[in-house]
């Protein structure tokens, strides 16, 4: 299977970015160095090509009901211009993908836009269409992933930088979305992100990608820095911190129970109501290593020499200067301050459970 390339593929090649395969896409992993890019976002601003993220649009009278029945959060609570973090679960309540749902501004043709993770767009589209048919709902579902370009601009200086290119981006409050003309391109400007910093995500016609990218004069960042930034901020990575086949987890286990609204009807609700009632046996925790070594996805977590859990993500945190990670452990070991051992190539490295996020503003 050939890899999907983003509209900015040629620009990234010209910049001599290192590329990697991610979710079926060939994306930049590193422009300069992960540390340099990471620090730019923490201290000033950085831009990320995130065109590998999916875009699914819904329109028609039953859009709200269809969205509500396929995501765990309450979509009907959204006003036009609101954004909402949510999960797509199966009948068992396990997370198929996490997503951000945008209730689009009134003037837009579509009612909703939601953002599945890279490589999940086709499955999400099919799932929405199948359930629309099954439930006899009147809604149009379009996979617009290739029509959209998407760039994240993140960091403490992101808004002021954007303010030089468009009108009053600061009027767009956190977790809302509005239209702005950025460098002559009509953009949906969403005050959302995946770095733990203030910033925006811009969505626009894919053909205008170069114009938007080049207008944003700041450090270009790849998926490497995106991963270290999101991990410090305690955000989950779909397919790694949960995976419907390899590591099925419900939102309570994944520590995103806040996206579940049991007062709405959705696929997986019954299972999640039962899980909320009985509590979960294992839970995602953050941990920090207390000695030299780096935890990686798939490493074991042990207590008193006995394996009790697994690392789902781990890295060296550029901001903290310590190795950090996320992993699943029985709830009895989930309290901050609990001592765990990470098994790094068979050797125990002391770690301590820490409240998430590791970094926040």
């Amino acid at each position, binding site marked *: 299977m050939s890899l999907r390339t983003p509209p900015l593929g040629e620009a990234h090649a010209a910049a001599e970015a290192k590329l990697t395969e991610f979710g079926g896409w060939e994306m930049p*992993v590193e422009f300069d*160095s992960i540390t340099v890019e990471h620090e730019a976002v923490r201290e000033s601003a950085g831009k990320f090509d995130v065109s590998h993220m999916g875009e699914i649009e819904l329109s028609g009278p039953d859009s709200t009901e269809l969205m509500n029945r396929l995501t765990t959060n309450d979509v009907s609570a959204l006003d036009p211009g609101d954004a909402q973090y949510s999960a797509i679960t199966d009948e068992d309540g396990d997370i198929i993908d996490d997503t951000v749902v945008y209730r689009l501004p009134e003037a837009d043709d579509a009612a909703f836009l939601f953002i599945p993770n890279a490589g999940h767009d086709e499955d999400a589209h099919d799932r929405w269409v199948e359930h629309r048919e099954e439930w006899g709902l009147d809604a149009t579902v379009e996979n617009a992933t290739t029509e959209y370009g998407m760039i994240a601009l993140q960091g403490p200086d992101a808004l002021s930088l954007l303010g030089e290119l468009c009108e009053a981006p600061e009027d767009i409050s956190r977790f809302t979305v509005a239209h702005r003309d950025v460098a002559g391109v009509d953009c949906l400007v969403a005050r959302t992100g995946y770095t733990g910093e203030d910033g925006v995500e811009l969505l626009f016609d894919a053909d205008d990608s170069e114009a938007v990218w080049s207008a944003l004069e700041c450090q270009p960042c790849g998926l*490497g820095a995106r*991963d270290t930034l999101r991990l410090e901020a305690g955000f989950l990575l779909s397919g790694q911190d949960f995976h419907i086949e390899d590591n099925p987890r419900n939102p309570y286990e994944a520590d995103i129970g806040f996206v579940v609204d049991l007062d709405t009807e959705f696929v997986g609700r019954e299972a999640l109501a039962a899980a909320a009632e009985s509590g979960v046996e294992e839970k995602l925790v953050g941990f920090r290593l207390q000695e*030299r070594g*780096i935890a*990686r996805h798939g490493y074991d977590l042990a207590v008193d020499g006995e394996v009790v859990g697994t690392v789902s993500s781990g*890295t*060296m945190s*550029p901001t903290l200067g310590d190795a950090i990670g996320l992993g699943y452990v029985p709830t009895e070991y989930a309290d901050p301050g609990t001592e765990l051992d990470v098994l790094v190539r068979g050797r125990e490295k002391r770690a301590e459970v820490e409240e998430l996020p590791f970094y926040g503003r």
Partner: protein
Amino acid sequence: MSFDVPDDCRYLESHEWVRRDGDTAHIGITDFAQDELGDVVFVELPEVGESVEKDAEFGVIESIKAVSDLYAPVSGDVVSVNEDLFDAPELVNEDPFGDGWMLEVDLDDESELEALLSPAEYDDQIA
């Protein structure tokens, strides 16, 4: 992009270098290798007194994005280890053929050096 390939070293296909200094030799990874890895954040090395064997693993290097084994270009007893790398692994990125060296070994068999890639051969490999 061009990478340093010093003339006074010999090379292993897996991107380690060895530089002879009398009876001992220093070992490290190449400029090309450090660039491929990106930000080096952890190095695991043998202790003084242990021995390394040509083409066998002698340690592990980790960057933010990858974990890689290190292979010995020559056999010998480890006489010193660059302990600066434990607190400053970024030295491997900054100066791979100098301050970023890893081991000094007492050479078992000098002829092992001749079987390694010459600078020109290694340069061809990474071109």
